């Protein structure tokens, strides 16, 4: 099935064509093609059909060197993932690794293997961990310091799930699942380090407020429902330079994630920043350090 064949002309519906999406140079900073499947390589190949169809220039795979549920345990497919990341680097596939702040030393060893000596370009804090420590716990200090040394991109999953008694936003988070407020506290301690606040905190109205004062934090919107007006609001409060885009496929559709940005009233320049320019700016130092080609 040809990914570039369409029976519907997007222009007739006020939507960008594939060529226009390609021209926006979209980098998917949140790709789960390798996630939670008994056949992650096959799933990745299937997901890349939609990456191609929607004109995405590059995906940043998250589930490398383990999974978000078990970040420090290699699956049976890590060698194949490594080979894909090396082979397809020039064809738009990059990767970052989940780390586990419950085990700082093991996380550092993983960063040495997969980032300093391997193909990956960053780290990801997942949605919970064994010790129940957030991204602002002192366990993270050596992790952040090594990430800075490596020029690694730092992505932090955040949510503010309603729960608890009495109910409150964030009261339903899992142990160790960071909130945007945790990211804000970490950002205050490391003012020179760029951090990505993932999922916009789940609840973007609160997430934006939490990180607003900290210029070294950028917001990523993937993995939550599309809310009309959300990106407009974030641009008003943070500026277009502080938002990066993620697709969260295959569990979220590109329609969901692209729609969030296309809904917003943006200049083409700002839209291109959000779709990829801002992430390229964050990733450029490590691309260059590794001798990888990057055009900002």
């Amino acid at each position, binding site marked *: *099935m040809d990914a570039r064949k369409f029976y519907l002309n997007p222009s007739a519906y006020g939507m960008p064509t594939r060529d226009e999406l390609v021209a926006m140079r979209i980098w998917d900073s949140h790709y789960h093609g390798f996630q939670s499947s008994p056949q992650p390589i096959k799933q990745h190949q299937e997901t890349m*059909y939609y990456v191609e169809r929607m004109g995405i220039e590059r995906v940043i795979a998250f589930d490398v060197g383990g999974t978000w549920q078990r970040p420090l345990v290699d699956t049976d497919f890590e060698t194949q993932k490594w080979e894909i990341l090396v082979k397809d680097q020039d064809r738009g596939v990059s990767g970052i690794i989940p780390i586990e702040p419950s085990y700082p030393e093991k996380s550092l060893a993983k960063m040495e293997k997969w980032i300093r000596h391997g193909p990956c370009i960053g780290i990801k804090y997942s949605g919970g961990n064994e010790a129940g420590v957030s991204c602002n716990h002192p366990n993270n200090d050596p992790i952040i310091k090594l990430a800075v040394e490596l020029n690694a991109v730092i992505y932090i999953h955040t949510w503010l*799930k309603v729960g608890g008694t009495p109910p409150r936003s964030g009261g339903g988070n899992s142990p160790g699942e960071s909130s945007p407020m945790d990211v804000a506290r970490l950002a205050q301690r490391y003012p020179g380090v760029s951090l990505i606040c993932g999922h916009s905190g789940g609840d973007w109205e609160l997430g934006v407020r939490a990180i607003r004062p900290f210029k070294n934090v950028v917001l990523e919107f993937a993995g939550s429902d599309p809310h009309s*007006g959300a990106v407009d609001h974030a641009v008003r409060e943070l500026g277009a330079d502080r938002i990066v885009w993620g697709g969260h496929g295959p569990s979220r*559709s590109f*329609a*969901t994630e692209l729609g969030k940005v296309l809904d917003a009233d943006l200049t083409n320049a700002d839209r291109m920043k959000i779709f990829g320019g801002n992430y390229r700016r964050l990733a450029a130092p490590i691309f260059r350090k590794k001798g990888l080609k990057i055009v900002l």
Partner: protein
Amino acid sequence: MKHIDRRSFLKNSLLTTAALSLPGGLAVTPAAAASAAPAGSAQATGLVDTNVNLFSWPFRKLKYSDTKSLVAKLKKHRVVEAWAGSFEALLHKDMDGVNARLAAECRTNGGGLLIPFGSVNLAWPDWEEDVRRCQEVHKMPGIRIYPGYQPFDLDHPDMERLVRMTAERGLILQVVFGMEDPRVHHPQITVGRVSSAPLIAALKNTPNARVQLLHFSGSVRGEDLNQLMKETSAVMDISRLEGNGAVGRMIGSAPGMTAGRAPVERVLFGSHAPYFPLETAILKLIESPLDAKQLQAIMQGNARRLLPRA
């Protein structure tokens, strides 16, 4: 994004005319999206959006909460008809006031595009009178209920009667399974989960009922969806379908698939605007590999079968 200029509109209108004159209808070869689609493609088919709501979402000012701006937005993206409920129906008690305002708003500011779908609340007394007024006074073709926000589930003792009553009156019944991710609800709000099982039982007892599920995802394993498709004639909208190529996977047109979970005849375009961006629903039709016949069915044909053009 882009607006449709007069030149494009005329061009596509002409293509529509050409398509109608073609033997074999809409089955044509695909086109690269970068170029104009060929005559006879689904490009000129207007969208019937079966799931929009008017007025104010109770917890946030929405970008297109003003009806005129919503209608302009719908028209910009080639929506030719939209079935409109009212956010007021979620929490208000004076349902006739809700329905009267909805009907008036569609008439006054709907631009000839909005079709009002009033609401009744089974938890409030004498809801049957609201059904009658929706049809006889407000001339509405259907009813939309919001269980969970409206304080009842589908196992309410009156549910079966509502299904029977709408069927007898020839009304469409839309059942909303969700409005917002429960993880981001306002902490003071408790919205119960809506279970489809009682609805399935009610529909089996009233097989001529015309029922549409809105924002329905079904259970993780999909038993409820399977049962709804096999044992009832209910249809659904696409607003809650999620994941890469979700519409195609639902109807079995995604790469490598030989069967879907629902026949294409049971799937209707619905955006959940203005809460969701309208763009999201349209992009679902682009992301999924759908042929012209499937597109035509989802974009308009299935809705027209349920509610012929007035």
